[in-house]
């Protein structure tokens, strides 16, 4: 049986107490009412049956006594009365006269006594046909029934009294005529009391059973979810967390079950939330680890050095570049104090940048690969944290510094190279304009100076433009057949005057036959002029410069032409051999700086030869002269 929740529940949680009490009271009332009605009905029925039975029995006893008196006398009647009293459940039997005096009684002790007055007064109304109650409720537990015996069958006179033989009281009794047989029976109330008691016991038992049933049902209903919970808990075998759904109790009649289900649901929600949190935490941990590893990998591969300072200046992380720049092993920096690693001037300098990290310090560090200039910059980790905590970035600015130096050197030289011809042009032009010169030769010399200086300016500008075009890759080459011997002769002839001015022996050695190559004649001539000009420039007076051409022919028209320019000049230290081909680079030597030049010539030579598919090499040593050699393919693509 299932009750509607809305009816069964008190508000939201359960049965109202008045419903249960009312139902229990109604049940008990019904039981008591039914018992009372039943008792009342039984009482009436029993009274009627008792009276009928008593009348019939008393009537029959009266006839038996009459017969006994008539046939055997008083003794037999007395015996009959004693037997009736002993075997029929009556209290007492007696034969009385009309005044109510007892003649013969079942109890011999009662002979001669008087029956109660109310019973005696009713004797005369009793018939001899039917017994009648002469005194009901004379005592609450007793009734008196009587029947009139008209004739005394025993021989003799009606007034004669039985002889009183010794030992036989009945025979001595005097039986009045007419006589009345009075029987004292157990009264209806007494019988009814016993029946009512047992009936009450039965009804109380019934009511008790009802109450027991109600209590049993309530207890069973209350305990059933507990039993179910217990059974399911035992069946979970330690996997409660995974089988929370099985712990739900489907008993909506019970508040405890509902509360238990809410509790289970709460636990399930908490478990789901906990699992979600654990999953999220695991994912975040995994992601953090991934990010951390990736970040560490990225930082490790960075060309810039990174030092992370925490806890008041302790190095918590140092990447590979930082270790390399500081000249230590990869793992030796972590955990050290920054003051053990960076000198005080550096720390003071980068900390002076404050929170903005706008200050840097350039510091030269001697390492295995030579001196490097490292720029230290610090950015604070936390704006509100310790000023000593932050990220120190280390940038190798050696190349940048070298480029700055090369740029400054270029500006220095190009400025000088520009201003010197401009000075001549302006001075001579003003001289001519001022009319200071009047002879023809001097005038011509002035004009030649202005013209020569203008050409010098033009060459300088062309060099700058050439190197700019080569640098950005916009240089155009006009490829065609280049007769190397003719080109070399032209260049040597052009430089002959410069060589003669320094009394330098300029020689040219050509093979009998040189193949024509494919190339840009003007650019190749300019490159050779650069090499030859450098040789003359850096060869002391009286020295020797030689241009030699050789050919390495191969089958099919392939092969190379080599043009070498050798001198007996100041020579170049091997450590500069690579860098002299860089733009704007000039060897840091007074003998070099004293010569005009922009540091662009060899860069132009290298780029020009490269664009022709060839190479340029240098062999030189300080004081032993230099040999620059261009190797050009015969069939340049």
């Amino acid at each position, binding site marked *: 049986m299932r009750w509607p929740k809305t009816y069964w529940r008190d508000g939201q949680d359960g049965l109202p107490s008045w419903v249960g009490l009312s139902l229990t009271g109604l049940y008990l009332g019904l039981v008591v009412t039914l018992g009372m009605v039943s008792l009342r009905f039984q009482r009436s029925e029993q009274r009627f049956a008792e009276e009928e039975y008593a009348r019939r029995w008393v009537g029959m006893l009266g006839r038996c006594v009459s017969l006994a008196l008539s046939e055997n006398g008083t003794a037999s009647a007395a015996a009959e009365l004693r037997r009736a009293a002993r075997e029929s459940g009556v209290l007492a039997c007696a034969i009385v006269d009309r005044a109510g005096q007892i003649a013969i009684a079942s109890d011999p002790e009662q002979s001669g006594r008087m029956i109660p007055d109310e019973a005696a007064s009713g004797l005369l109304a009793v018939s001899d046909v039917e017994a009648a109650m002469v005194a009901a409720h004379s005592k609450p537990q007793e009734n008196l029934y009587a029947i009139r015996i008209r004739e005394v069958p025993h021989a003799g006179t009606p007034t004669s009294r039985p002889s009183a033989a010794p030992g036989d009281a009945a025979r001595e009794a005097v039986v009045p005529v007419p006589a009345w047989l009075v029987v004292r029976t157990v009264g209806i109330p007494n019988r009814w009391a016993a029946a009512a008691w047992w009936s009450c016991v039965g009804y109380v038992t019934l009511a008790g059973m009802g109450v027991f049933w109600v209590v049993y049902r309530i207890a069973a209903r209350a305990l059933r979810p507990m039993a179910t919970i217990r059974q399911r808990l035992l069946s979970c075998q330690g996997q409660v967390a995974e089988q929370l759904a099985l712990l739900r109790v489907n008993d909506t009649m019970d508040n405890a079950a509902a509360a238990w289900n809410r509790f289970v649901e709460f636990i399930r929600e908490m478990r789901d939330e906990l699992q979600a949190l654990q999953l999220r935490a695991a994912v975040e941990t995994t992601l953090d680890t991934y990010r951390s590893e990736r970040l560490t990998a990225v930082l490790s591969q960075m060309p810039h050095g990174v030092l992370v300072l925490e806890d008041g200046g302790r190095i918590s992380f140092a990447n590979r570049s930082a270790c390399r720049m500081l000249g230590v092993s990869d793992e030796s920096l972590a955990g050290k104090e920054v003051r053990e690693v960076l000198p005080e001037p550096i720390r003071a300098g980068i900390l002076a940048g404050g929170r903005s990290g706008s200050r840097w310090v350039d510091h030269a560090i001697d390492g295995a690969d030579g001196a490097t200039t490292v720029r230290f910059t610090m950015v604070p980790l936390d704006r509100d944290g310790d000023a000593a905590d932050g990220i120190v970035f280390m940038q190798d600015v050696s190349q940048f510094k070298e480029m700055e130096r090369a740029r400054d050197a270029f500006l*220095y030289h190009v400025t000088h190279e*520009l201003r*010197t011809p*401009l*000075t001549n042009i302006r001075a001579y032009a*003003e001289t001519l304009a001022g009319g*200071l010169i009047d002879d023809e030769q001097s005038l011509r010399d002035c004009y030649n100076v202005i013209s020569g200086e203008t050409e010098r300016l033009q060459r300088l500008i062309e060099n700058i433009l050439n190197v700019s075009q080569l640098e950005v890759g916009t240089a155009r080459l006009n490829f065609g057949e280049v007769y190397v011997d003719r080109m070399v002769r032209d260049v040597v002839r052009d430089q002959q005057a410069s060589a003669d001015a320094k009394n330098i022996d300029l020689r040219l050695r050509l093979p009998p036959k040189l193949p024509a190559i494919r190339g840009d004649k003007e650019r190749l001539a300019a490159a050779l002029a650069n090499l030859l000009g450098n040789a003359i420039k850096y060869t002391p007076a009286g020295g020797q410069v030689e241009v030699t051409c050789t050919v390495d022919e191969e089958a099919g028209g392939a092969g190379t032409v080599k043009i070498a320019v050798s001198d007996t000049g100041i020579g170049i230290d091997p450590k500069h051999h690579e860098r002299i081909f860089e733009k704007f680079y000039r060897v840091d030597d007074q003998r070099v700086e004293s010569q005009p030049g922009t540091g662009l010539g060899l860069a132009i030579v290298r780029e020009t030869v490269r664009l022709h598919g060839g190479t340029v090499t240098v062999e030189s040593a300080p004081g032993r002269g230099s040999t620059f050699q261009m190797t050009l393919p015969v069939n340049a693509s």
Partner: protein
Amino acid sequence: MAAILIAEDDAHIARVLTLWLTRNGHEVCEARTGCEALERLRAGGVELMITDVNMPGLSGVDVLATAGAEGLLPCGAIVLTSRCDQREIAEAVRELGGVVHPKPFSPSGLLTVIEQKLSCAAAGARRERDEA
């Protein structure tokens, strides 16, 4: 009228300076290197020196410093330079009693500077004589 030494490794510049100074009545002598200039100064008779900074051997500033220390230049010196670090050179030259004149220059402008320099030197000499 003054005896002026032109120390300049560029022959064209030296030539045009000589032309302008001689036309204005000055006595001019030339030197192509720093060492040559210092020898000429030590030979005596030079009142004012016009020198380039960049010269083989000793630079013009070095020559001025030596000459100043030896008291060889009564009217000081005018230093010509085409370098881009003229400010640093000017500070060094000023301490040595000279003035810097940048290249490219106008010969007439340089002549004006020379005249001013000589006038100042003459005025200074007169003051010294008067004070003496």
